[in-house]
């Protein structure tokens, strides 16, 4: 099993969620994060003093899926989250050793 995590622009969340639903992903977990990357923040003036907003708000989406679905998920997220402008974000994929559904104790793919 894999955990696909994607850092995306916040206003793309709904599109990504819908794209994932369309390919049958039944659960995701979402986290508010701040990102620092090629997309630069802005320098603002607050009361005449400089104010660098380095960190931009981003959303991190975590999707645990069966290995067989990974490519589809990546594609869905990429398409839904892409604006073509700098700062669209990244996808990282990790191996998951074990999955357990707390409610039932099920493990493995059944737990998703």
């Amino acid at each position: 099993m894999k955990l696909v995590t994607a850092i995306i622009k916040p206003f793309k969340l709904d599109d990504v969620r819908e794209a994932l639903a369309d390919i049958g992903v039944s659960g995701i977990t979402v986290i508010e994060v701040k990102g620092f990357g090629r997309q630069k923040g802005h320098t603002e003036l607050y009361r005449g003093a400089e104010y660098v907003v380095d960190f931009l708000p981003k959303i991190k989406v975590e999707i645990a899926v069966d290995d067989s679905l990974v490519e589809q998920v990546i594609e869905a997220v990429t398409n839904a989250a892409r604006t073509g402008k700098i700062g669209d974000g990244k996808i990282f994929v990790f191996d998951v050793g074990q999955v357990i559904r707390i409610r039932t104790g099920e493990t493995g793919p059944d737990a998703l």
Partner: protein
Amino acid sequence: MEEPITHLAYALDTFYFLISGALVMWMAAGFAMLEAGLVRAKNTAEILTKNVALFSIACIMYMLIGYGIMYPTGGNGVIPSINWSFMFGGDHEVAAVLSSEGATYYSGMADFFFQVVFVATAMSIVSGAVAERMKLWAFLAFAVIMTGFIYPVQGYWKWGGGWLDSIGFNDFAGSGIVHLCGASAALAGVLLLGARKGKYGKDGSINAIPGSNLPLATLGTFILWLGWFGFNGGSELKISDIGEANAVAAVFVNTNMAAAGGLVLALATARMLFGKADLTMALNGALAGLVAITAEPLTPSPIAASLIGGLGGVLVVFAIITIDKLRVDDPVGAISVHGVVGMWGLIAVPLTNSDATFLAQFIGLFSILAWVFATSLLVWFLIKLAMGLRVSEEEEYEGVDIGECGLEAYPEFVGSGK
């Protein structure tokens, strides 16, 4: 009357006016908090900036020209002739007051102070309706014209002794001249401006965009409620004898009862329609009650005032839903509260005041609506040509605070506003 009595009565009426004016000025804070509470966090600093700036612009424009238009030295009842003198000061001479036989009974400066805060109120109504997407400087440009020109002209028609006054139109404290006026200008702006991104889905869905800070919205409503005692109470214009004092007291009671009635019935209506006690509807209901009673807060009995306000509260809930269905996007419900219910207030006058006629009320209603809507549409349109009304799509997503004000209202609190 004896001289010392005249002195004292003049002082008391002037003081009453000043306190009433201070209460109405306080309504500016109410609008600011209400609107700040009902927009999203990312647009909060900008709406605050609009509110403080529009109040200041209203004061300056009305001093320079608006007051002179509204209370001119001459005019034919429709077109006033401007009186430029106010800005240089001066007030009634003691001797003139004493010899006026009671005709001049309070300070001219106090009169200005009371009047100027009304203009600001009308303008405050606009800011809420166009919130979250209109450019700051476009809005302020409109504020200049609205407070210096559009509002004063129709104010002249009634309160300045113009033609609406002559035909017997009744509007005690401004359900029409202030509230409907503000709402008409707002409607014109919203039509040219369009809805917020994401408010209406392509599939016809209407999405909710919840306000970010309901304690602020509630505080704003309480401030407005308090300020309204000055708004309506001061509009009796005199308190210094038994009859007038009774009248002011009746206005206070009725103003309060109408707000209470509006709140309770709006809450109940929302509960019935949606199954939940929607706080924002309750707040709009209180304001609707206040707007409804403003055209005639003197003649109703307390129970009648509760009902007039209460009907305003019911009406506002349906108005908000209907206007939303028409895809007119008004984040704070200003057009419903001040426009739709403002009309109801005007129409309700003859129900309790036998001096008023439905005909005159309708003529007043339509002429205010027509004048303000038409001139506003023109002005908004010219501003749109000159500088554009709407921020860029990107700025709208990011929030207008960063783009317009260069700062955030709550920099430490909100992570990624959607």
